[in-house]
């Protein structure tokens, strides 16, 4: 137990003494390691250990949050007392006795990071370096990262909810730099998992990812500037799903919906996308990057169908915003760590398979951009305007993939683009990402099959045709 149950109960009770109707304790014991190799040599081995307690108290829509990394009972009670001063009401809410929910059986981890010797981790980096650097002579620099993260959380609240969970994440990334004739381009690749080191030792094809990073860097080195203008864009599967994540996902989080700050407010049951679009946020996929047994308010994670045949079916809702919206929470509350109050966030979010094939989509596009690999992006939930960068792109000419192009950005509006998706292939895949928002940076999968957007603004350095 991370803290004595009696102390947890005392904190929850103290928090309710001034009339709040909800109190919650979040305890986190965390360790992580980041290894970085440059040109094949281990340069950084940074280890972190943290422990912290977050206390949240609410009355109706109003919530207060505080945290400390002290384990001292007096400090913790004082924190609850200080926070409770924000409330002043005669009618008191009585706490429901804690009832521990059964520990989730999903997301089993075989080899925890703490059980792996440092030299075995370093070997993985050496393998990645070898394959990335030997790919081609234009590869001048290779930087590899190996990150692992092990976290034990305990969540208890005044409504009797009481859960504990161990969460593990591992990830290996390769970044290659290609240089020639004064030009320089980077390419990156990698993979991660909610499994333990068994994923890196047994499942991940590290050489393939390493070569991929170098291949992208080399391809982009000799690529021409992308033309600018409005054109059809075929977005490839897996990380291409960042388009949905940015353009629509964030605007479906209660954080913006509850405050009437999303373009999707009051749109449940209405058509928000073309008929072929089905979108899902699923926090229950076994050992996936964005999965967990419980969300950070202690509710079981769920599979949420957001859009079905173009109709908006659900938002992603946390407890406090659920009150504002007069709806039920959807198990969507997440946070980076104890330094953040939790709020509604995505988990593993993807557009589901369609009926076309990637070959059909390319063959049916006379002129356009094939965005094979997307970088990150951002969205303004207030009006849905989004942008994201294309890391690896090719022109499509006469139904065929043609020359590579660099420096492209896609900009558009989330509400509009969903209606403009006119072909979806059947090759759904997901990819790892880190999503930054109100409650910090959290692991989240994005995903989709290859799909086509009828028209979208492509920003490049070359004046359009």
């Amino acid at each position, binding site marked *: 137990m991370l803290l004595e149950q009696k102390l947890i109960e005392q904190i929850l009770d103290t928090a309710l003494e001034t009339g709040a109707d909800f109190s919650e304790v979040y305890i986190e014991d965390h360790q992580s390691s980041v290894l970085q190799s440059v040109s094949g040599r281990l340069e950084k081995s*940074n280890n972190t250990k943290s422990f912290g307690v977050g206390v949240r108290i609410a009355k109706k829509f109003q919530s207060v949050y505080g945290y400390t990394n002290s384990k001292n009972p007096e400090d913790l009670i004082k924190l609850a007392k200080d*926070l409770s001063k924000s409330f002043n009401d005669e009618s008191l809410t009585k706490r429901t006795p804690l009832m521990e929910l059964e520990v989730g059986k999903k997301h089993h981890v075989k080899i925890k990071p703490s059980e792996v010797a440092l030299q075995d981790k370093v070997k993985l980096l050496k393998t990645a370096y070898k394959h990335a650097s030997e790919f081609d002579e234009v590869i001048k620099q290779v930087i590899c990262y190996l990150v692992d993260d092990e976290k034990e959380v305990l969540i208890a609240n005044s409504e009797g909810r009481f859960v504990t969970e161990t969460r593990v994440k591992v990830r290996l990334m390769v970044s290659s730099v290609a240089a020639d004739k004064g030009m*320089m381009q980077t390419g990156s690749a990698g993979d991660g998992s909610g499994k333990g080191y068994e994923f890196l030792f047994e499942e991940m094809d590290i050489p393939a990812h390493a070569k991929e990073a170098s291949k992208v860097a080399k391809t982009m080195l000799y690529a021409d500037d992308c033309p*600018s203008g409005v054109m059809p864009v075929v977005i490839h599967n897996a990380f291409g799903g960042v388009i949905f994540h940015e353009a629509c996902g964030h605007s479906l989080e209660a954080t913006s919906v509850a405050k009437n700050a999303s373009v999707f407010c009051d749109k449940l049951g209405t058509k928000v996308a073309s008929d072929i679009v089905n979108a899902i946020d699923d926090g229950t996929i076994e050992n996936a990057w964005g999965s967990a047994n419980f969300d950070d308010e202690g509710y079981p994670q769920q599979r949420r169908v957001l859009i079905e045949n173009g109709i908006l079916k659900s938002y992603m809702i946390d407890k406090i915003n659920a009150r504002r919206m007069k709806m039920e929470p959807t198990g969507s509350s997440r946070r980076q760590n104890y330094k953040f109050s939790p709020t509604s966030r995505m988990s593993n979010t993807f557009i589901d398979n369609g009926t076309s094939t990637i070959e059909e989509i390319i063959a049916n596009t006379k002129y356009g951009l094939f965005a094979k690999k997307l970088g990150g*992006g951002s969205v303004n939930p*207030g009006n849905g305007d989004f942008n994201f960068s294309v890391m690896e792109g090719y022109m499509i000419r006469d139904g065929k993939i043609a020359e590579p192009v660099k*420096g492209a950005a896609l900009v558009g509006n989330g509400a509009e683009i969903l209606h403009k998706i006119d072909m979806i292939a059947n090759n759904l895949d997901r990819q790892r990402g880190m999503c930054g928002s109100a409650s910090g940076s959290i692991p989240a999968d994005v995903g989709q099959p290859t799909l086509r957007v009828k028209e979208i603004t492509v920003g*490049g350095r070359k004046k359009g045709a």
Partner: protein
Amino acid sequence: MNLDKLFKRAKEKGIQDLEIFASDRNSLSIDIFNGEVDKYEIADTNALTIKGIYNNKMGHFRTEVLDDSVIDEILDTIIASAKEIDSLDDAIIYEGDEHYEDLQDIYNEELFNLDVQKKINHLLALDKYLHEYDKRVSVVETMYSENTNAVILKNSKGINLSNKANSAYIGGNVIVKDGVDQRVGFDVVISNDFNDFDIETIGKEIIDDALASLGAKPVPSDNYEIVFSNGAIATLLSAFQGIFSADAVQKGLSLLKGKLGEVVGSELVSIVDDPFMKKSSRSRSFDDEGVATAYKELVGKGVLKTFLHNLVTAKKDGVKSTGNGFGGNVGAVNLKLEAGNSTLDEILASCQKGIYITNVQGAHAGVNAVSGDFSLQSSGYYIEDGKKVKPVALITVAGNFLEMLKDITMVANDLKMSYYGVTSPSIKVKSMTVSGS
């Protein structure tokens, strides 16, 4: 944690030199949503970063668990890390400098002691001001955040330094609607002096641009003269500040490699790192390695003068550290593009066919810090014959950072510090590629 015990155990275990960097951070943040306190957060965290040299290699450990029971685990992990590290970099723990600047104004006790209710009331006043400003205002969210950060640096070579700074910001988000279009406004003002938080000034900064941009549409794709507002260009400078790091240069990851002493921008461009900037909570008299910080010109009248160094990169280049070793990397303290002589109005008046960009989005993804290429979602106003004609949104402005620096033709006198610590005036760039309709 008993530090004497930590240093003693380290010595017993064969660690040659040890250094600790302790930080104690206090924070308060308050959000108001539609007239009510929506979020109220208080926090106090202590962390210790420990570096140790073993076999001439450096191991690192950062811990928030501060009882003596973890001392052995931490030291053993540092030794295990040092044994695996095969980087050719030197491991250096610094003996200290003769002189460290005395920074008086970076901690303001008055701000810390000001009654919380006064801070809440000020925020409520801002909320009211924004709500009543215009009937097209639909959603208002205002926020106040305050941080106090005290750090101590101590090592086995005798350094014992400390620094305490505080700062706050007040700001807001608004959504404005006119029945056809919906736009957002956002801004914050940063200071450690509460008197700088004038409701009307902040309110106008937040809302005027949002209202004026209602009905914004893309312009046709073409080349335009580009004026970046002080805030917009600060975003871009921040995204590219890594190119000044000697670490990036030595690893072949900076487009400034080999360009020391060369012209990298127009002669209107001077970029400095000012670690003593007033009212910046980032200001420091020593870096995380104990080296005295110093004011320095990175680019002077267009010429690249120096890179930013920490102890390791400086030794590799045979120079002295510039006091820019932060968080295990190299970085500027307060990066600043120096002001020019023009006014923003003069700059706008000089445009025949231009776009005044007041906001850029997605700088974390839309820039390639290695090649210098960027393509960013932007919004602002179309300028024709020196006059603001109409609001513009959903366009991208694309270019290359170094080419842009060379094409800067005017620099304004309206310096502003952005919330991520980069200070800049508005600037004009001769011509850039815009992608729109």
